[in-house]
């Protein structure tokens, strides 16, 4: 046991096992949000009045469905980690809370209603980028794409939200496809 070479080999074995252990998000979550974003962004161009109602329902409902999909994915992957789930919930919950609190600025006329959309887009871009840094790697470039969509929204005049929605939804779908390729079959 005093053989340091063997000890190091054993520790390398442990390290390799630990590095392989975490499971990413299930592909279904990417597809779900791809669809929600596509519809939600497109609504800006065809029915602006229904956008707040849509996100008030789709946001929390999508969050709850995502939580269920994440829980089911952990069960099937044979890797249960409640603290990871809580970290996800806090991260995305903070985004929902920030958007909700931001609506007060519109109500008090500190920010014009038409300016709030791009502000939300920036918040979402930052949330996705941080999720990519701390939770799921592929979301990093989804965040960058949303930031690019923000610039598109500022610089164009017709169907800009639809175009932005298509770009972001495509990024989420591609992330979903990539996640499904690296999927772990277990339990």
């Amino acid at each position, binding site marked *: *046991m*005093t053989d*340091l070479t063997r*000890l*190091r*080999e*054993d*520790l390398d*074995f*442990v390290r390799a*096992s*630990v590095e*392989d*252990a975490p499971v990413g998000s299930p592909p279904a979550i990417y597809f779900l949000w791809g669809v929600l974003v596509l519809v939600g962004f497109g609504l800006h161009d065809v029915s602006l009045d229904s956008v707040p109602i849509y996100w008030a329902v789709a946001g929390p409902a999508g969050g709850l469905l995502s939580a269920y999909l994440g829980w089911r994915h952990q*069960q*099937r*992957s*044979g*890797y*249960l*980690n*409640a*603290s990871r789930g809580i970290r996800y919930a806090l991260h995305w919950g903070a985004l929902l809370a920030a958007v909700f609190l931001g609506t007060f600025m519109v109500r008090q006329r500190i920010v014009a209603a038409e300016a709030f959309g791009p502000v939300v887009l920036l918040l979402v871009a930052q949330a996705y980028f941080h999720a990519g840094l701390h939770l799921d790697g592929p979301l990093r470039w989804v965040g960058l794409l949303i930031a690019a969509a923000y610039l598109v929204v500022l610089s164009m005049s017709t169907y800009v939200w639809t175009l932005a929605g298509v770009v972001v939804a495509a990024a989420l779908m591609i992330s979903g496809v990539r996640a499904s390729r690296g999927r*772990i079959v*277990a*339990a």
Partner: protein
Amino acid sequence: MSAGLAGLDSLLEHRSRLATCVLLSRADQLSFSRLRQLLGESDGNLGAQLRKLEDAGLISVRKAYQDRRPVSWYRLTAAGRRALVAHLEALTRLIAPAGR
């Protein structure tokens, strides 16, 4: 060196048992299949190593069904966590001088 050896837990000197405890310390529960996949062990060998850890009270097992198939979920006990921390500290003391 001897101080390090004194703190080593003989049960955790086996690399699969040590890796099992480290993995379980980073997750709430892991299934048998997942552990087998991560450790690259055979069913029989992993089962034997897990039983030793379970008999020593370092891990606990919960039997459940998923999609009509039996699944064994393993969790690190409080005693297991204490033993793992003590063992890793002893390993660090043992290896640190060699790295200087």
